[in-house]
Structure formats: structure tokens, C-alpha cells
């Protein structure tokens, strides 16, 4: 589905990603693990074609990509109902309602104002939005945990279900280890340079993690972010 070779990304003179290679097969769930500032979001955006890069990014010509961003702070600048948000993408009300149902939201939500949604609901709306136009790859930046309403499926079981139902390939950015173990079949540890990659249970060990997250401390003492 996707082949990345010797990918390097330099933004404003700073090297964000260095010499990264990996391959994604159809139906894979890949997690990209790393501390804040490790270049995870930049990697997703580079794969989407938003940032310039060196190296090779080769998508399968049949790949149709859906993208779930981490946050959309500017969306509150517009008073907008959920179904109008889908209209921005050219999705009809009926299709929007169907998509919203498929991510576990009730039909009534499509008339609601985006600003009135809970963060859990909003994340599901974003997932449904990304699933419109039937993508076969989903890029997801930091799904948040712990905001799900009791008794409903978590965002991860939702993603797992979609992965099964549609054989959807997924790339998830996260810093949550439990997600990596429970959910993905391939992990890429990233802190500027790739530190490990492979099946989570095989490649993740205390030494790798210390290296991965130990860097974070160093990173923060040097640059005050």
C-alpha cells in the first residue's frame, strides 16, 4: 500500500525526520510511537503530501487516503452544524447521517452545532468525516483515550471494527504504549531518527523505550518549548 525509503524532512532548517524507511501492507495497522516533538505529526503530514521531503514515498495508485487531524482549533470560528461540516467535503445529508451512525453517533447529532459537541463526539465526527468518500487508508493523528461515554465502544475498538469490516489500512500516531500492544501489528518508534520498527512484542523492550523517551527529557532541557 505504501513504501517509504530513506525519508528525510527538513522544516525551517531543522531536521525533523531522518532516514526513515518502512513498508505498509493492505490491512495493516501501524502505530507510530514517540515522545512529543519527535516528528510523528510531521511524518503523517509528509505522507499526505503537505510537507516537502527527501527520499521516496510511494503510495499504491489505488490508495484513497482519509485523514483524521489531532485538533481543529479554527473550526469554532464558524457556526456550523455537523451536516454542514460534511457538506464542505461535498457529502450529502443522507450520507453524512449514515457515516455518523457507522461511528456510533446518533442520527440527531447531524443537526447539532459543532461547538456543542463533546470532545469524544467531535473525534468521532472527524473519523466519520475521514471515512466519507470511502478511503482504503486512514491516517489518524493521536486518537485520544479516556473520553468515551460509558457503555459505548472506545475509539480503538471502533477503529479495530472498521479495520475488519472494510479491510482499511491504518497509520496511527500515538504516545500511548497500551494502544501499540493491543491494537497494532507493526510499530515504528520515532524520535527524529527511527529507533525501532517491527512487531510490537518483538521490538519494544525497556532499553528501546528508555532510549525513545529518555531523549524527550534531553530535548526539553535544551529547547524550552
Amino acid at each position, binding site marked *: 500500500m505504501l513504501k517509504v525509503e530513506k525519508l528525510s524532512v527538513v522544516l525551517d532548517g531543522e531536521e525533523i525526520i531522518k532516514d526513515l524507511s518502512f513498508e505498509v501492507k493492505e490491512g495493516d495497522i501501524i502505530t507510530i510511537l514517540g515522545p512529543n516533538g519527535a516528528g510523528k505529526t510531521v511524518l503523517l*503530514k509528509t505522507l*499526505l*503530501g*503537505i510537507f516537502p521531503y527527501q527520499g521516496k514515498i510511494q503510495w499504491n495508485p489505488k490508495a484513497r*487516503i*482519509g*485523514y483524521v*487531524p489531532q485538533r*481543529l482549533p*479554527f*473550526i469554532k*470560528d*464558524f*457556526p*456550523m*452544524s455537523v451536516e*454542514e461540516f460534511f*457538506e*464542505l*467535503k461535498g457529502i450529502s445529508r443522507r450520507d453524512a447521517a449514515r457515516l455518523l451512525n457507522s461511528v456510533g453517533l446518533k442520527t440527531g447529532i447531524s443537526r447539532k*452545532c459543532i461547538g456543542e459537541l463533546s470532545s469524544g463526539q467531535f473525534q468521532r465526527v472527524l473519523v466519520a468525516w475521514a471515512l466519507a468518500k470511502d478511503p482504503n487508508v486512514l491516517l489518524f493523528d493521536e486518537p485520544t483515550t479516556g473520553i468515551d461515554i460509558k457503555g459505548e465502544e472506545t475509539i480503538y475498538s471502533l477503529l479495530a471494527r472498521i479495520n475488519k469490516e472494510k479491510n482499511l489500512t491504518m497509520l496511527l500516531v500515538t504516545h500511548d504504549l497500551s494502544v501499540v500492544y493491543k491494537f497494532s501489528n507493526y510499530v515504528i518508534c520515532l524520535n527524529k531518527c527511527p529507533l525501532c520498527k517491527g512487531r510490537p512484542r518483538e521490538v519494544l523492550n525497556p532499553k528501546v523505550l528508555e532510549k525513545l523517551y529518555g531523549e524527550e527529557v534531553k530535548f526539553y532541557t535544551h529547547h524550552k518549548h
Partner: protein
Amino acid sequence: MLLLSLIVGASIGCAAGYIGTLMLSRRMSLVAGPLGHLALPGIALALLYGFDISAGSFPFIILGMVFIWLFELRTKLPPEALTAIVFASGMSIAFLLLPIEQAEAALIGDITRVGFLDATFSVLLSLFVIALTKMIYKKIALISISEDLARCERIDVRRYSLIYLLNIAIIVALGVKVVGGLLTAALVAIPAATSRNLSKSLVEYSILGCLFGFLSPIIGILLSQSTNLPAGPLTILVSTSFFVLSSIFKR
């Protein structure tokens, strides 16, 4: 004469209020401010040499947009600083060109002396701006919300932003006729702000923006007739009154 100025004021106001609903987002509101001031030197030249003030301001607005864009690219200063620079420079050039006692029309507009040809042209241009804005509305909204999402949808962000900016330049050039160079930003921003207070959806938001933009110059010009005060400032104050009321009845 009165009817002509009412028609011109209402159509420009409606177009300005409509496009204003796109400009009220955090990333765009700062564009509106300096543009009217950028128009000032152009208005001054137009008044000195006796040609249409909208035609005079248009090239200056375009020029100013290019300058702001270049400065932002080159200096990475916050837009507020650039706005202040542009604002002051526009005013200064205008006052160098135009003696201060003649500057009133440049600063606060003079809609009551609009001619027939001028009026026809303004109305047609306003309709053009409304049609073009309607065409790009959803795309620009998505770009304002997230350029990344827009790019994923394969929207040509640069092309749409360019059409959008041109649209803004036209409406600001028209707006100086109604309220002058100092107050144009308000013509764009206040109806949109009022509408946002009252709207729950994008459709309501854009329609109400247009409606308040339409009503304010009409009431302003009529008030000007009965009070003999200038129409430009009255228009803006009517608009402000709507805004204050909408803040009280905010949904």
C-alpha cells in the same frame, strides 16, 4: 439621487457582510483591517484628479496586499505589527497628497453624491462579488478550518486563496465609496460579528451577515438625510447597534 445611494449602499453592504462571514475567522480578520487604510492614498489621488475613488483605491489595495504578504514571508513578524505599519503608512501618504480639509470624503466616504453610471457599476460589481463568494464559500471555509484537510481533499489552496483575496480587494474598493477608507474594515467585520452572535449554522450565518450588511447602509443613509450628518459614520453606528442588540439576544 437618494434612491441611487440607497441601492448602492445596500448592495455593497450586503456583499461586504457576506464575504465578511468568511473573514471573521481568526486567521483572516487581520486582513480586513489594513486594507481600507491601504486604499487611502488611492482615494486621495482619485479626489485630486477627479476620477472614481473605487477605481483609485483598487490598485493600492492589491499593491498593499502584495506588500503585507511579502513582509510576512520575509520578516515573520506578527500580523498586528504589519497592520500597524501599513495603517500608518497609508494614512501618511494620503495626507501628504491631500490637504487635510479635503480629506473627509477619503476618510469617511460620501455615498450621497453617487451618479447613475457609477451606481450601476457598483451594483453589478457587488453582485459579482456575491456570486464569486458563493462559489468559493465552502472551499474557503474548509481552508480556514484546516489547510491540511483542504489539501487532502485536493483543493488548490493557492488558487482559491487568490480568488478570495481578489474578491476582498474588490469589496474594499467598493466599500470606500460607502464609508470611506477609515471605516471599510467595519463594513466587512461588524455584520459578520452580529450574525455570528445569532447563528447556529453556516447557512444562517452567511444569510444574516448579508442581511445586516444590507440594512445598515439603508438606515444610515436615511438617518443622514434627516440629521444632515455624514452617512458613512452613521452606517457604521447603525451596524454597531445591531451588534450590541445581537450580543444581548445571543443564542
